[in-house]
């Protein structure tokens, strides 16, 4: 299977240039979007649709630090997913658990400002973990175990971010 990096024609890097990635996606969309094939034979339209779907899927993967890391690890021969990777350290788990509890109490109390503060905290923690991930991927050789640890951390922070977002949706 073609890697998302190959599909979008960008280097296999964790620290991707986001603007370059978006430009590439735009250029490929121009070439493959079904609107470009509106008057064409049906099999050609189907083919363009499925290619456009693959390009969008690859773009989605590369924009998200978690799936981008997974794609890179997969190239290194380590296929990981949420269920088969080392768990993060207990101290992180404790911290995330506390924050989730605080979040749900703020949510119940309808305190928007507190939920917003927690969401901002989760965002900056995720940002910081993403930076550490980028550092790890820039080392040679790539410290795979280290990457996996940060990846686990990111997953927890991502879920926290999602919960904070869902809480904000309601308030």
């Amino acid at each position, binding site marked *: 299977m073609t890697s998302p990096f190959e599909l979008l*024609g*960008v*280097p*296999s*890097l*964790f*620290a991707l*240039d986001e603007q*370059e990635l*978006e*430009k*590439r996606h*735009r*250029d*490929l*969309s*121009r*070439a*493959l*979007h*079904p*609107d*470009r094939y*509106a*008057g*064409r*034979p*049906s*099999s*050609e339209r189907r*083919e*363009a*649709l*499925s*290619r*456009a*779907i*693959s390009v*969008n*899927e690859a*773009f*989605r993967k590369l924009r998200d630090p978690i799936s981008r890391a997974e794609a*890179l690890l997969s*190239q*290194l*021969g*380590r296929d990981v997913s949420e269920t088969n990777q080392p768990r993060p350290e207990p101290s992180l788990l404790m911290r995330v658990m506390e924050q989730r509890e605080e979040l749900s109490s703020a949510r119940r109390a309808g305190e928007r400002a507190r939920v917003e503060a927690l969401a901002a905290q989760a965002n900056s923690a995720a940002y910081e973990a993403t930076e550490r991930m980028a550092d790890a*991927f*820039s080392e*040679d*050789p*790539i410290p*795979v175990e280290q990457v996996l640890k940060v990846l686990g951390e990111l997953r927890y922070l991502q879920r926290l971010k999602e919960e904070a*977002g*869902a809480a*904000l*949706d309601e308030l």
Partner: protein
Amino acid sequence: MLLDIFDPKAAPRAIGIDLGTTNSIVAYVRDGAPVALTTCDGGALLPSVVHYGSNGAVLVGRAAKAQLTRAPGRTVASVKRFMGKGAADEETTRLGAVSFATPQDDEQARSVRFDVGRAVTPVEVSAEILRSLKQSALDQLRAVGGAVLTVPAYFDDAQRQATKDAGRLAGLEVLRLLNEPTAAALAYGLEQKQNGLFAVYDLGGGTFDVTILRLEDGVFQVKSSGGDSALGGDDMDRAIAQRLLLQMGAGDERVPEVVALALSAARELKHALTNAAEASIELPAKAGATIIAKLSRDELDQLIEPLLERTGKACRRALRDAGVEAGALDGVILVGGSTRVPRVRSFVAELFGKAPRCELDPELVVAYGAALQADLLTRDDAEVLLLDVLPLSLGIETMGGGVDKILPRNTTIPAGARSTFTTYADNQTGFELHVVQGERELAADCRSLARFSLRGIPPMPAGMARLEVELSVDENSLLKVSARETTTGIAQEISVQPTYGLSDDDVERMLIEALDHGEEDLERRRLVETRVEGERLLLATHKGLASDADLLEPAERAEVDVALSALRDAIASAASASPVQAAIDRLDHATHVWAGRRMNRAVAQAIAGRSVSDIEQSVKHADGVDAHVARHRGTAP
């Protein structure tokens, strides 16, 4: 009636239609600029009201609107709010004058049906409006090609499918369903030629949408969309009408004529308050008395504040989803008739921290965008592209009633994703899947789209079978589901049961019923449509040969040439659709591999399009994983 689509002397023109809750508009592009066509009412706006006369005659537009207070039971307004809704939908319980037919079975319960002397579905009512617009376009353009229909960005799959069905029923070739805010942005963007980040605030008669999008190099990339497909000017009218009903001394029992009168008076007051600080209207009250109902702008503002708060919430979420702050926006665009209400304008200005723009008529701008998109789709030199997003997450119900979100909201479309499920009992040979759309955690709180059953899984222990389900959405945000069992690779029979809306058979039956000579007319129409498709294909193939003939092997080229002349002959001589269709299929087959190569070429050109310095940059940086893989290949665990 349907052969009028085809006037062999006139070149068919693609049209754009804004099928609105309150008014509908048809537009096309003339000399590069969108123009609204005159409807049967003499202006650009056709009231989206349909009246079913007791003599069987159907009225659309202003004539039907005049019947709203006279014969409310036979007149349907705001049909858009019922598109894709089931008989038990909450919308049927809101204040209104029309009555509903009681469903006799589950099949009927899948769609709302209005009781207008007979039972009609929202799809049929909408088709009447579309038919009238198509006729107006035909009168002025002589031949109509395909049509782009607009839908609220926040419409779910069932609502979109219903809109498409209405187009089909009206005898339109639906080229595309286009999101209304995106259409408006297209009209503005092409007019202003300005790159940047924009918010579109679209408050119509019955629906609210907010879209955040970036315009860059001719690509309109939607970052996020949000909204409420049951929130709009109608709800303002209802809030005012509730107050008027109290003043009129109307009891809890809702008399359709009285409700229709109160709603109509509410609309009048609301419109008057756009330019005045106070307005009044004379209304009948109990025991033959009349009252003067007064409403001030302050009072109106108070009545609509809760509705505006709901739009504010959706806007904040859309900004968050797009990952931008309001301060980063280059502009805010107002769309929809309800944005004429002064409080709506000031609310939007406060919300986004900048004065909104409304240089283009907020009631016409969506139709303009639809016309522009219709024009883009029929040209192959188009430089402009719309990249839209899925408005609501798509998922599959899990054991225990949760939702496995396979495609999250605001994913760029077309999109597809897979998820794997397994059997939970030994020797389980079938599998039920429930596809839902929405953001809530429980499947029961989301919108049910369809149930799928898979049969023919070979017997094996629980947890052994691997069922890979793929959800994909096309450029119209319409869903397709496929599934396969991956351990054996055995193909499954899938049967689909949509939760809401009409089946293809229903639409086909209605189509035949709507024609004067049923089957016979339908066959003639198919021939016409197939011929048009064949002509288009000939044109596209010749253009392809002009640019990419070098990608064909000589034997393939010979095959293409034979298929081309066979299609030309079939178009000229066929008396029914099937020989033309067969020739189309043959050409399609002969060009299929070539089409793939042409796509590869287009992709290679897209990738090579970047500047030399970009390439040097990426070469320098490519010392990352690629190098690592090269050095450690085979040694990784």
